[in-house]
């Protein structure tokens, strides 16, 4: 951790004080950008710390990525609109479940629905995970952003039909 960016370094240090062993990686690539990966069991605690203690109360969006055997969810949070902290957490692809954060940040509701639609992640405790962006009649289990679904295969599957 570099002393070049003191405010960002301080945020990382305080996170380490709270959930130290559960942090997989922490980076400060440039001013106003922090990237932290945590283990799934410490994820909710990390969100609570960031929103309640470190004042990262704004969520810009949630990025979902298929990284092979796991799905990685990146929560893009910001503090006063200034520092952007991307909190990464992974969950196994054969049973991708993460706790919802809508009880802490109501504004996350549509972002969780989108990741659910496109990658199949189940957000436990979300009040309504109904489809947000995919059309009516989209075949179940076709998660477009998963790597195993190529464009050609998606089109073949959708052409076959099948209700959602």
């Amino acid at each position: 951790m570099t002393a070049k960016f003191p405010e960002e370094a301080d945020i990382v240090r305080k996170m380490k004080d709270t959930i130290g062993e559960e942090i997989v990686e922490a980076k400060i690539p440039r001013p106003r950008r922090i990237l932290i990966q945590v283990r799934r069991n410490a994820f909710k605690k990390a969100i609570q710390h960031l929103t309640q203690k470190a004042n990262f109360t704004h969520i810009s969006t949630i990025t979902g990525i298929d990284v092979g055997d796991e799905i990685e969810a990146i929560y893009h949070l910001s503090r006063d609109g200034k520092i952007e902290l991307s909190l990464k957490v992974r969950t196994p692809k054969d049973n991708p479940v993460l706790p919802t954060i809508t009880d802490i940040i109501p504004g996350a509701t549509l972002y969780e629905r989108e990741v659910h639609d496109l990658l199949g992640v189940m957000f436990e405790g979300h009040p309504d995970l109904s489809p947000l962006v995919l059309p009516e009649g989209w075949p179940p289990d076709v998660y477009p952003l998963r790597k195993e679904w190529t464009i050609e295969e998606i089109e073949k599957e959708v052409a076959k039909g099948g209700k959602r």
Partner: protein
Amino acid sequence: MGFLKWIRAKSPWILHFNTGGCNGCDIEVVATLTPRFDVERFGIIKRGSPRHADVLAVTGPVTRQVKDRLVRIYEQMPEPKSVIAVGTCAISGAPFIGCYNVHGGIDSVIPVDVYVPGCPPKPEAIIDGLVKLISKLRADQE
């Protein structure tokens, strides 16, 4: 019937419908109504319902959500009707070819009479397309 055709060719009523595009073509279609371009001097009026429209001006690459609705709107229009595809997306789906939720090109779904290329086409080009359509309607009638 000849009289009605003449009336239609004189002042076509247009329904504008977006099938999931970026809105670039839509703002240029709307711009044709505004004072600099003033498409109403050709007697062209925008309508809100397919049942009153002679011409369907469609933009966008036809997303899956909207395909059935596009077909229904076309079916609800009374004959004789025409379709003008505005913009490159409406013509071929580009640049969204290879996007899983896009059909690509209006004419894969409904018949098209006039194609106006551009990304987006300028309001002058859209008016040119409409004028060509009116000329075609008049020629058909003769």
